[in-house]
Structure formats: structure tokens, C-alpha cells
């Protein structure tokens, strides 16, 4: 049989249907603004997308497993904020518990994980609709940022939480390294680990996965917890980049997260898509935003142009991919 070779290539290409779009954007961008193709600007784009890309990574895994998590966007603000409030003094907006500052990152990750676990608990144990549970949780989790802070921004933060989002490693922002490494781990994990493949099986046919001996509930808990943790990490990076935790941190991201995942080929119906594809989705969104900023489109009409570009990317990826989307 000689079929394998071309088929393999085809399968690879299917992840990369957005590559032509990215190339197109690079060319158009270079043409429209001389700053665009500079290393500095492209580094900025990557840095700006680092935090949201972690959400895309998390959401892609959750979608592949056939579930849904809208509450990730709220975790981006709430997890680091509560962690900070456990650490800083009352005068800086804290709870006055005064845990050691070094704990702030582990605390934030723990809070993210706990939110994910609670989502998992409601969805798996009570068999509630993931969409609506996490929609309610989106509201509740954000309330846990707004309530304790009374709407105020936290800006006296321990240094440890600022480090990751603002440090430079080997001449590149640390956030880019972190996101890059996690995406590499995601691509590897979902491609080459049994647990990663289990996500596809669960999303593709949950009964079949169960019959094949996959511990479906356990894997789903895992993916929700991992999702919450990644969202908390995204929050830490964002906090470091912005230097403070505003009440709106992360608010409104989730739509873009879904857009990136879906134009990157991840199916809303579960079982389909790759992490690499999702990454290309993030890049497309980041480049579009950057180009629109550089050319200074009128703010009033920006949404129209932006939405249209998403539609066009979608159609290109549909035509290049050759399959109906869902």
C-alpha cells in the first residue's frame, strides 16, 4: 500500500489551513505599515497574545473533549486577584490574612484549579449542561473579583506575581516562552499521550470511550482543572504585563477565545481539531488586531472590519480544509 504518505500530508495540512491566511496577513501588513514586519512589533504581537493564547489552549482541550467552559475568562481576573488579596495588607486592598508573598503564584493556580474542579463537579456529577453551568460560573466567578475588591483595581502587588508577565528571558518576554512551551506540551500531549488521545475519544463518542475503558469522568475532571489552572496562569501573565489587576481583567475574552479555536479548526461538537490549529487561530486574531491598530482604522468601523476578517479567515479555512464545519 502506498496510500499512507499522501494521507499523512493531507492530515497535517488540515491543521494548517490557516497558514495561507497568516502569510496573507504578513504580506498585507508589511505593505500597509513599515513597522509591521519589524522584530519589535512581531514580538509585541506575540507578547500581547500570550495570555489569551493560554485560554485558547485550555478551551481547545475542553472543546476537543466535547465540553465547554465559558468561565475561563472570569478566572483570568479572579484567580490572581484573590491570591493577591490573601497576601497583601488591608491597606493595599487585601483581606488582611497576610500569607507570605512567595505563595501568591501557587495560590492563584490553586484557585484556578478549584474553579475548574467545581465546574467539573457540576457538569460531570450532576450532568448539567456545560454551557449553562459555566455561563453561570462566568458571572459568579467575576462576582468574586468585584465583590471583595468593591470594583477597585489592585495595584500594590507582590513582586513575585509581576515577574512572569514582565520579565525577559534570552531577549524575549518570558510570557512568550511560557506560552510557547505550554503549546508545545499541548501539541505533544494531545498527539502522543494516551490521556491526550482519550480527549478525542471522549469528545468523539463518549459511550465508545467508556466502553474502551477510558475513565471518562476522571479525564473530564482533569481537563476542567487543567483549564482553570491555565486560565489562572493567563491571569498571572496578564497581571505582570499590566502591572495591576483591574476589575475587567479577562472580561470579554471568551468570544475571541472561541473564535481563535474554531477558525483554528477545533470543532464545537467535540472530538475534532488540534492544538497546533488553535495556535494558528490565535496568531490570526493577534495579527488582525495588530494591523488594524497600526493602520488606525476608525474605532467606529473597526468592528465591521474585524468581524469581516474573521469571516474571511473562516471561509478560507473552510475552503482549504474542504470539510463542512460544526
Amino acid at each position, binding site marked *: 500500500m502506498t496510500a499512507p504518505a499522501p494521507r499523512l500530508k493531507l492530515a497535517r495540512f488540515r491543521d494548517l489551513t490557516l497558514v495561507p491566511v497568516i502569510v496573507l496577513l504578513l504580506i498585507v501588513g508589511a505593505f500597509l505599515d513599515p*513597522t509591521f514586519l519589524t522584530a519589535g512589533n512581531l514580538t509585541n504581537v506575540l507578547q*500581547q497574545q500570550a495570555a489569551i493564547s493560554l485560554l485558547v489552549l485550555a478551551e481547545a482541550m475542553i472543546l476537543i473533549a466535547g465540553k465547554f467552559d465559558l468561565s475561563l475568562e472570569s478566572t483570568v481576573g479572579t484567580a490572581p486577584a484573590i491570591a493577591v488579596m490573601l497576601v497583601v495588607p488591608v491597606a493595599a486592598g487585601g483581606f488582611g490574612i497576610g500569607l507570605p508573598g512567595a505563595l501568591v503564584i501557587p495560590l492563584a493556580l490553586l484557585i484556578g484549579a478549584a474553579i475548574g474542579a467545581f465546574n467539573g463537579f457540576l457538569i460531570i456529577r450532576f450532568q448539567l449542561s456545560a454551557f449553562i453551568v459555566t455561563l453561570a460560573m462566568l458571572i459568579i466567578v467575576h462576582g468574586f473579583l468585584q465583590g471583595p475588591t468593591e*470594583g477597585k*483595581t489592585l*495595584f500594590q502587588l507582590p513582586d513575585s506575581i509581576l515577574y512572569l508577565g514582565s520579565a525577559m528571558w534570552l531577549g524575549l518576554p518570558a510570557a512568550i516562552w511560557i506560552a510557547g512551551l505550554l503549546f508545545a506540551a499541548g501539541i505533544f500531549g494531545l498527539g502522543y499521550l494516551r490521556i491526550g488521545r482519550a480527549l478525542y475519544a471522549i469528545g468523539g463518542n463518549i459511550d465508545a470511550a467508556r466502553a474502551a475503558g477510558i475513565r471518562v469522568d476522571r479525564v473530564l475532571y482533569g481537563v476542567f482543572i487543567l483549564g482553570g489552572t491555565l486560565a489562572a496562569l493567563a491571569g498571572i501573565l496578564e497581571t505582570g504585563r*499590566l*502591572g495591576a489587576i*483591574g476589575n475587567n481583567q479577562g472580561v470579554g475574552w471568551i468570544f475571541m477565545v472561541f473564535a481563535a479555536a474554531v477558525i483554528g479548526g477545533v470543532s464545537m461538537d467535540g472530538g475534532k481539531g488540534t492544538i497546533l490549529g488553535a495556535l494558528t487561530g490565535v496568531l490570526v486574531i493577534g495579527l488582525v488586531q495588530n494591523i488594524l491598530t*497600526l493602520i488606525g482604522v476608525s474605532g467606529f468601523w473597526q468592528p465591521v472590519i474585524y468581524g469581516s476578517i474573521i469571516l474571511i479567515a473562516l471561509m478560507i479555512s473552510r475552503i482549504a480544509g474542504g470539510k463542512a464545519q460544526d
Partner: protein
Amino acid sequence: SGTTAEGGGGGGKVGIDHPRADSDFWNSYIKYVPQMAGELKVDLMPATNSQNDVAKLVNNVQALVGQGAKVIVMAPQDTGAIANTLQQLENKKIPVVTVDTRPDKGKVYMVVRADNRAYGTKACEFLGEKLGGKGKVVQLQGALSSINGRDRSEAFLECMKAKFPGITVFSEPTEWEGSKAASMLQTRLEQNPDIKGIYMHAGGVHLAPTLQVLKQKGLLVAPDDPKHIFVISNDGIPQEFEAIRKGDIDATVSQPADLYAKYALFYAKAAAEGKTYKPGPTDHDSTIIQLPNGLEDQLPAPLVTKENVDDKALWGNQVK
């Protein structure tokens, strides 16, 4: 005046970011910017818009700097989360003029704003006097996560507590949404038909729904009618003036969109030319005060009532 020209020469491109495109007030401001830039001969780059998202604002500023901006004008709606960016701009020796909000941390060349706390206090004093220090009032708040909304709200409540303890205040968080405002006001009036005053945080979104609810309840009556509810608004858009003339509402605090644009660019140009300023009164009816991280020019925000509503100097009377 508090101005001391020093150095001079230089100049350079001014990058400007607009905070949002979906409110009447900011829309007016955005329209004043190019006009004022022309008058002041500022070399303005194409404006970016951060759509009420501080993360976008940071991205936009990075892009503007990448394109060669020498001065940045911005209106960060989240005054904490901009700290890092201000730090980076300081490192790059790029002066920053902020409009409307005062960053909590990070160096600014000049803050151009009217005092939002003063809006709340003015509204409180107006309503307190009209109601004779007793009764019930509703304040339609903006979004609690916005510094301006919070300042207005806190100042209004503090002033009520201090000066008019006989007045009960109901605070409704409307998220700057007309729909929520209408529902909450309607419900509150059902529950407390004896409400006598309303403070709206944003005329652009709250005015029409409020009037519609009052009209439906038959409460849109002349000020001398005992059923009249005293309404004070905030913003100073033309429609509010119209409502004041008709007697539908009683007052508004004019937030000077034109002056915001004018002095933002004025100070941007000055910064580019290397001028410096000191605290003290200015030549345009305002005072520059010292902040820990810079200076603030506190522009006047006049209370507009039936008496002065036709004043040509008000920006709301200049827009077409």
C-alpha cells in the same frame, strides 16, 4: 498663570488612543480631537481605539510607540492596570497626557480631567436642596468597575450622608445600560412611589429611559407640581439641555468634552516641545494641582440648570 515656557523647539508626533466608541460623551470628544489638533497645529497620528479594554489600550500604545509616537494621549478607563505601561513609557522618555482619569501609579506629564467626585457632590447638593433635605432619591450608577462611575457614586453617597442625612438613597448598578436603568428605575418607583429625586450618572444612556419611565408613570410634570421628581444628569449632551429647557429634567453637570480634547492636545504639544508646568491657577479658569506621579489640570465642570442652559460657552450648545 502656572505656565512657564522653557526650552521649546523639538515637537514630534502625538499618538492618541480613544477609550471607547459607544458613548455620546466620548463620541463628542473623539470628534473634537482632529478639530483641535488643526487649531493647535499638533502632528497627530491616526487615533487608535481601545474599546474600553485596558489590555487593548496597552497593545495600542505599544503599536503607537513602535510607529514613532513622541507623546501619548490616552484615557485609561482602568487606572491601575496601566501602571506598567506608564513605567515603560517613562523609561523610553515618552511623556503621557491622560484624559478623564488619573492613573494610580506611574508617571504622567499632565492629567486633564474634571473632578468626577465633584460631579457626585454637585448632584447631591442640588438634589438635597431641592428636596429640602428629606425624602428618597435614586442614583442610576454607571459600571461599578469603572473609576468614574465609582467616584461619582461614592462622592454622591458621602455627601448625602454628611449633608442630608434625612435623604434615603437607592443605588442601582446599571452597567451604563439603558435597558437595566429603565427596569431598575421602574421597579424602584413601583416599590417607593414617593421617590422625589434621581441622579443619573450618564445622560447619554440614562436620559431617554428615565424620561420614558417617568412618562409612563405620569410623573413627567412641571417642577411646581407636587408630583414632580427632580432629575439631575451628568455629561452635558445637547439632549440633556433640551430636556432642561422643556422642564423634563432639572439640571446636568457638563463634562467638558471640548476642553478635554483641547487641553489634552495642548499639553501633548507642550510636552513634545519640552515645556514644563507648576501647580497653580491657569489662564482658562482651572487649577493645576500636584499629584504624587505628576500634575493635574482640573477643568471646570459647570452645573447647568434652566438659568444657564442657553450659555453659548457650553460644549453641548456647540455641537451640531
